[in-house]
């Protein structure tokens, strides 16, 4: 999780003139909905990052700088916080994020086989994205679905009692447009 030692020298420098990643609508929502609830602006950092990630699929460096400017904290501090949390993607991820639970209850019921099969099917390792940018595969800690293990999340839809057949079925059945797959009942912050 913490202390990534990544080489960021190759990171693209923010360019002037491009439309801001933290849009005016986002700023408005943050100002109206979030600022009144907290005594400091910094407290809104995590919701702002959630918002950016939800909108762009990941959080580019330029967006971190923009958030910093908006909340009055230095870009380094924003990076410091953002890089701490596993949830935030500071590099692009696929349209579909497959998160397989690797917790003990799932492991007892064969989560390793699940991961292996997905790896083989998509030809990726954990943490990697397929060449066409459609899938990213990661393992994560307990999804709280231990009663119906093994489980995985694809974007924000939960799949349980996984079997090899079920995995093939699910992966083959995903629409090309990932937005169509989004669970409409879940309203993300």
């Amino acid at each position, binding site marked *: 999780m913490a202390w990534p030692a990544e080489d960021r020298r190759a990171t693209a420098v923010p360019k002037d003139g491009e439309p801001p990643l933290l849009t005016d609508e986002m700023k408005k929502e943050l100002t109206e909905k979030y600022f009144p609830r907290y005594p400091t602006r910094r407290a809104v950092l995590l919701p702002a990052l959630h918002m950016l990630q939800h909108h762009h699929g990941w959080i580019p460096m330029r967006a971190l700088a923009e958030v910093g400017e908006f909340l009055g904290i230095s870009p380094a501090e924003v990076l410091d916080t953002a890089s701490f*949390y596993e949830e935030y993607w500071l590099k692009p991820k696929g349209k579909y994020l497959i998160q397989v639970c690797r917790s003990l209850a799932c492991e*007892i019921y064969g989560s390793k086989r699940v991961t292996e099969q997905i790896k083989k099917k998509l030809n990726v390792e954990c943490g990697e994205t397929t060449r066409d940018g459609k899938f990213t595969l990661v393992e994560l*800690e307990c999804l709280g679905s231990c009663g119906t293990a093994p489980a995985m999340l694809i974007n924000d839809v939960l799949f349980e009692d996984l079997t090899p057949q079920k995995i093939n079925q699910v992966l083959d059945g995903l629409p090309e447009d990932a937005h169509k797959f989004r669970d409409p009942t879940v309203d993300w912050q």
Partner: protein
Amino acid sequence: MTPEELSKIATIEQEEQQQHKHVIQVCVAAGCLSSHSDQVKDALDKEVSKRGLENTCHVKGVGCLGLCAAGPLVRVQPTAKPDAAVMYQAVTANDAADIVSSLEGPPVKRLVCPTNVPFFTRQKKIVLENSGIIDPDRIEEYIAVNGYAGLLQVVSTMRPSEVIDEVMRSGLRGRGGAGFSTGLKWSTVAKGRGSTKYVICNADEGDPGAFMDRSVLESDPHRVLEGMAIAAYAVGASQGYIYVRAEYPLAVKRLKAAIRQAERAGLLGNNIFGITFNFSIDIRLGAGAFVCGEETALIASIEGKRGTPRPRPPYPAESGLWGCPTLINNVETFANVPPIIRNGSAWFAGIGTEKSKGTKVFALAGRVTNTGLIEVPMGIPLREIVYDIGGGIPDGKKLKAVQTGGPSGGCIPEQHLDMPVDYESLAKVGSIMGSGGMIIMDDTSCMVDVAKFFMEFCRSESCGKCVPCRVGTAQMHDLLCRITDGSGTADDLTLLIELCDVLRATSLCGLGQTAPNPVLTTLQFFKHEYDAHIQKKTCPAGSCTIHAPAEVI
């Protein structure tokens, strides 16, 4: 909202419910939902309206019915005789017609899930009393089962100090794991300096194998809100936060809906029940860091910083969020508060053991027949949970160990199965109550591998702030890897034990201090498995891949 309005809502809702001859409850908690219980509910809805039974039969989505392994679960309850309810298991949309047809006759035999079995009869439900009964998306149903009556009672008839006394007398202890006295914590916050105080609900459930909080939030979100509001009144806070894992989308959705409804009804917000008591609740989404379940890390995270713990004291009860006195309780702790107020502390103190009062919700998982959510009185023998409620070990296998408390807990072997489940007894065998995850393992699980699993968890979830935890967990994980792949030596084992002491004594927060527990308990009860890996280069359970050539003995 006035008291009269509250009781009016309850009466209207109760009368409306009485009008229906039957109510069909479909579990729409995450477990059943993922096996398409929503389609079952739609099919039942259609079937009922096709036959024109809308006025006599009500189909509704409810929270967790408990037996997740047999989902989707459906319960058919005649309004006049609630005890004559029939439970159906593994229901599909195609079964809808048969279920509706059976309303006036005998139940559909092939689907019946017997409820006179220990899984249901041995449980004692307080926190889960409404789970599977009410529709979590409707505040009216919660109010109809005495919801928010506790809050009303508190703000209209009790002084804050009386509320704290009542909670203190009930003997309620924190359900997040450590078991600190809830009343004592509340009184510390109440005595805290300053006029700004906060109440935080810790719903950052991260222990592997634990899903109690998720289920409570999905099945009965208003209960948690009510508990928080009562706490806020008692300690003098006006702002509350629920810190919930982003990985629980359904729980987040239900909570948001519940907060909106409560605000609209005037049960949250300003001048609750017409007195000068203001309390609002906001949701904070976590961002995938286990350590944020630690209270000081959680506070840092809400403040918008890295979720790293800080040394205590000062405890959050004295100086927490933005330096203000802050009450942090777990979901289940708050969920226990409304019934304690409604039924009185003596009632609650009458359940459980001398030092551990009330009930505890456990998430049964692993190699056990009935996986799912259970609530049992404190002090129940572990054996009863595994064999009576859990239905024993499937496939004719033998029980090896019960893991409680997640990465901070330990593995309890067969010989201690008759011990009562309470805070003290679990601590005596080196484990902890924890938040309530209970993973059952049979003889195909290697205990060294289990210890390695939890150490890997701690290693990757260590926040990196203090050296013993950051480096120690990595070293211990390496040593356990060597032992499980057959290249371990006796010296490695010595070093491993030494590191256990170092981490316990010198880590900054609970994560590092308790990280050695899985190793220590497996060493205590399953030393022979370590020896087999090191000396004979074999894995008794046959689950580890030994790379080193087996020595000829």
